[in-house]
């Protein structure tokens, strides 16, 4: 077996044939993967794909039905406390105590994890400065915005210097600006804290920040690679054109370029290897007036599409997204 990191024989996370069954439903149907030390590893998939169940098993919150998993060199079932000591967790829904100040939340955490007393004050300052909340340390958490709470949770997750930090949908429900600031903290801490980051997301654009991603759908890992390699595997650039007669355009494409195109919502879409070079040729030789043209490089959306046959949004719309959002709103 080849380890992802040659200089560190023990991977940060290694999973073998992990299965979780809930009565009739198989939430996770036998997955295998490894995460190298220092890696930022993303689990990508629609809600209900089994990402949270997997993360909960790795965090010792849920017992696997079959298979095994090691986190930071410890078995998640047999060495539960060892695992817990070495991981930090940021959940989808906030787990802060709103009636305490930011600093009180952190110092309770430090005591709960037995951080040596002489280090607590300095360490709290460090993590709070990292997420730029030090100035707000004596404010009640209830007065914080969603983004600030999430940052504080990330700080708390780091407080006891875990070797692996788990982030379950760290940016869900946040506005785009806050999302990108959360990501800048995550990438920064990857650099500064010498830590392995394991996260789940259903935002395709966020997966680009990861060193490697695994796409999960219906309880299985469908593909696992770097974002670049995944996009390369899809290959072609995507060209979208609008014409007055789409049917004629499709036929013209087939006759003159031997390209199969599809039409959806009045837009003709097809793939070519070098989209930008192809456009001039298209204008010259199609023989039809073109009203607009759009060339895009393959995105992870396309990757997801090509491996699962559906877009992540379509996969989600059938899931309990709305129900979950309602639950989150209620709990505020």
């Amino acid at each position, binding site marked *: 077996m080849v380890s992802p990191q040659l200089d560190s024989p023990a991977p940060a996370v290694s999973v073998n044939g992990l299965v979780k069954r809930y009565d009739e439903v198989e939430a996770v149907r036998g997955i295998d993967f490894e995460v190298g030390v220092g890696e930022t590893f993303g689990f990508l998939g629609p809600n209900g794909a089994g990402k949270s169940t997997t993360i909960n098993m790795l965090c010792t919150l849920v017992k696997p039905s079959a298979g095994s998993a090691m986190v930071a060199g410890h078995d998640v079932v047999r060495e539960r406390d060892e695992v817990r000591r070495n991981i930090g967790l940021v959940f989808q829904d906030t787990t802060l105590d709103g009636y305490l100040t930011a600093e009180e939340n952190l110092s309770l955490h430090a005591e709960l994890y037995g951080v040596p007393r002489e280090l607590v004050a300095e360490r709290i300052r460090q993590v709070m400065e990292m997420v730029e909340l030090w100035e707000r340390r004596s404010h009640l958490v209830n007065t914080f915005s969603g983004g600030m709470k999430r940052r504080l949770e990330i700080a708390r997750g780091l407080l006891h210097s875990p070797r692996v930090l788990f982030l379950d949908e760290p940016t869900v429900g946040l506005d785009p600006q806050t999302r990108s600031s959360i990501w800048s903290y995550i990438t920064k801490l990857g650099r500064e804290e010498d830590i392995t980051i394991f996260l789940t997301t259903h935002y395709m654009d966020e997966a680009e920040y990861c060193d490697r991603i695994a796409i999960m759908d219906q309880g299985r890992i469908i*593909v696992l690679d770097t974002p670049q390699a995944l996009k390369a595997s899809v290959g072609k650039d995507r060209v979208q054109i609008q014409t007055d007669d789409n049917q004629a355009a499709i036929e013209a494409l087939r006759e003159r370029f031997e390209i199969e195109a599809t039409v959806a919502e009045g837009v003709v879409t097809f793939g070519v290897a070098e989209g930008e070079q192809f456009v001039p040729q298209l204008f010259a030789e199609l023989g039809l007036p073109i009203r607009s043209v759009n060339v895009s490089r393959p995105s992870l959306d396309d990757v997801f599409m090509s491996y699962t046959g559906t877009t992540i949004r379509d996969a989600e719309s059938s899931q309990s997204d709305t129900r979950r959002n309602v639950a989150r709103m209620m709990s505020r």
Partner: protein
Amino acid sequence: MATETGTTPPALQPPPASAPAHEVARVRVPTRTARSELRAIKVVWKRELIRFSRDRLRILTSLMQPFLFLFILGTGISSLASAGTHGVNFKTFIYPGVVCMAVMFTAMFSAASIVWDREFGFLREMMVAPVGRSSIVLGKCLGGATVAGFQGLIVIAISPLVDIPYELSLILELFALAVLLAFAITAFGMMAAARITQMQSFMAVMQMAIMPMFFLSGALYSVANLPTWLAVLNRLDPLTYAVDPMRRAIFARLDISEAARHALDPGVTWFGWPVPSAVEAAVVAVLGLAMLSIAIWEFRRAE
């Protein structure tokens, strides 16, 4: 599957070098020991105290009901009751029940906080820490006992208003019983909270348990010469064994006629055997510990 371990190593950013950019205080979390469990109990306990001290409104509202009983109901009924009290202030008579009531309500709200904790997520933060669940439950119970005991102390402090003079030994005895009761009620609440995850249902269940307990306990009437059915229910009610020793402690220090003592403080009997205060306190303690064990077992079992 395409997900084997031999996939391409991360090409993007190499993992950071072993020395971070600046000096970071690295922390090693020590292994779990008796000391770390004690510390966990302390953390959970301390959090209860911080939250209680921030919530002035709760301190006031949970005193509201006992004071209504003592000063409104007590004053209103005293003329009606004077025929049977042999000259003793009726408020003095119901006072131990009112202390218990204040304690019970506060303890109930303390236990309810674990339902809030679950709803707002903080319970999860405690559950994933490398500490035993028993420590979390025990810390909660001790926290509840402390704040409810404090609430009891406020009511104890007003005893001169109902003709009970200050006496250190009495105050200590009442306080000890209040803390014991607070502990048992919090344990009872924790046991319920392990299964009931909705705040509304939890409060409804607690009300349904606490009001009958209060009315059956003899807090508002004398336990002698009750109809058999009520006497049986009274002896089965755990609260009886908190109210009775408190009343006994108070009446032992009052200078009243033998007839009044006989009518107002007959003491609980089991099949004619007068149950000593120590046994009564032990009943409360044993019940509290039993419910605590069940609560711990339930929380351990929960995934």
